[in-house]
């Protein structure tokens, strides 16, 4: 009995270790492939210049700027709206039909393939609202894509705030709204940011949603307003790998772009993690 148990335990932990090792190996392999092929492309010119000669030379600066603004604007739009929705969803003790419909919609949206978001953005923002193919249309589309994750994270974060805090606040004569703004949201913020970090990575890396709504194949110009078309890192990789006829020159640039995209996502995540860490440290309970 004890021997089989020991054996089982041994087998269990060995298997576990094996899987962990496998995951680590894949991650290392993944980073190695990207960095070994793209790392040598990275230099000052690559990061600060526009592409030249049908994207076979020069840098990727416009794509960096494009992805940066797409990400910032989409999160800037999805975060407040997502938090607002989560507050609405959590402020009802018993779910009404409206809350139920919203919840089903959110969960459905979370599973929709990103190309569908692209079509949605095309129909709604590009054509119906006449924002054309622009930074704005792309950011809104990506924002819609990020919303389910942000809403779910925010809702969970708000629900995990101890009810004691709400009671204490109300018992001191605060209104529901004051309670939400002054106690519940500040307490939930670190966890809300965690959810947001995940969506930043997703938003920055998506190609399909911006395909018809924001991305342009090639522009030397940087966006001057939200109505401009932009280049974007993931779309740039896609373009380099599928268009043009100088594969030998384009493929290394694509890998270099991938390195930059990865670095950018890591950078944003790190900043967000630091902010979250600071907030957590400040308000422990």
């Amino acid at each position: 009995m004890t021997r089989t148990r020991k054996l089982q335990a041994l087998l269990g932990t060995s298997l576990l270790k094996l899987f962990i090792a496998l995951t680590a190996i894949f991650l290392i392999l993944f980073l190695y492939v990207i960095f070994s092929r793209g790392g040598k492309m990275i230099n000052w010119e690559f990061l600060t210049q526009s592409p030249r000669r049908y994207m076979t030379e020069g840098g990727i600066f416009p794509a960096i700027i494009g992805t940066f603004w797409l990400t910032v604007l989409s999160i800037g739009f999805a975060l407040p709206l997502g938090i607002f929705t989560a507050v609405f969803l959590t402020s009802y003790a018993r779910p009404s039909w409206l809350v139920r419909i919203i919840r089903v919609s959110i969960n459905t949206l979370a599973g929709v393939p990103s190309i569908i978001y692209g079509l949605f953005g095309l129909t709604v923002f590009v054509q119906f609202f006449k924002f054309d193919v622009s930074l704005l249309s792309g950011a809104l589309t990506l924002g819609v894509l990020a919303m389910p994750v942000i809403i779910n994270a925010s809702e969970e974060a708000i629900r995990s705030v101890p009810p004691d805090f709400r009671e204490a606040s109300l018992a001191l004569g605060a209104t529901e709204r004051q309670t939400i703004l002054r106690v519940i949201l500040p307490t939930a913020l670190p966890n809300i940011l965690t959810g947001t970090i995940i969506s930043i990575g997703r938003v920055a890396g998506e190609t399909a949603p911006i395909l018809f709504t924001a991305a342009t194949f090639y522009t030397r110009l940087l966006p001057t307003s939200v109505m401009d078309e932009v280049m974007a890192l993931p779309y740039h990789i896609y373009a380099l790998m599928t268009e043009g006829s100088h594969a030998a020159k384009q493929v290394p640039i694509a890998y270099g772009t991938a390195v930059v995209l990865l670095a950018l996502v890591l950078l944003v995540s790190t900043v967000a993690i630091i902010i979250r860490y600071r907030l957590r440290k400040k308000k422990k309970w």
Partner: protein
Amino acid sequence: MVNKSAHIITEDLNLWFGDNHVLKDVNIPVYDRNVTALIGPSGCGKSTLLRCFNRMNDLIPETRITGKVMLYEENIYSSRVDVTNVRTKVGMVFQKPNPFPKSIYKNVSYGLNVRGIARSRIEEIVEKSLHDAWLWEEVKDRLHESAFSLSGGQQQRLCIARALANDPEIILLDEPTSALDPQSTARIEELCLALKDQVTILIVTHNIAQAGRISDYTAFMYLGEMVEFGKTKQMFTVPKDKRTEAYLSGVFG
């Protein structure tokens, strides 16, 4: 008992949580600047009654209330009453210390901030409230540290200070010492006695000895009914009701 002015008085108060009839025709006076203890076995409705006095039961869905709770001349359940106003006049301290995840200072200033009290006055009121809750000396050098850096007993006194900052007329305490060590408990009991000059106190307690030590009046509840109300000394020596006698002698509880 007759010549005291009652601060809060309930009139045929009934409360249901769904189908559960929790409070049954409760009539109880809470006398001005006295300590009133609410005792009774677990589940008899002490907390629920207490939470009627600042309308905290409003938060629980499917709650139905009939009867009146008169705060001076005003029924706090009348439709014209502003609930937030009631809750500033009637402060509450909970069983488990529940300071906000904010600094000590911000905890005490919270009620003032939400009411939009002038910044210039807040500092002074915070200091006074901390003094009144016997916490000032312990925290005056660390006002901007997290409230969670305090001990349990200190946190509970912070919660009392936080309630006092609103300058309430009455403070409700729901077993405020049941999560504390004996020393912190003694300190809060003394504090209650000191505070009754400035504020009316209604305290729920499981601890009969505690009720005896600090209260002027005691109300004994059983299965949602107010069985007996009277001067603590009288009730503890010659209880009128058999059930009170049984409870006080520890037969059930």
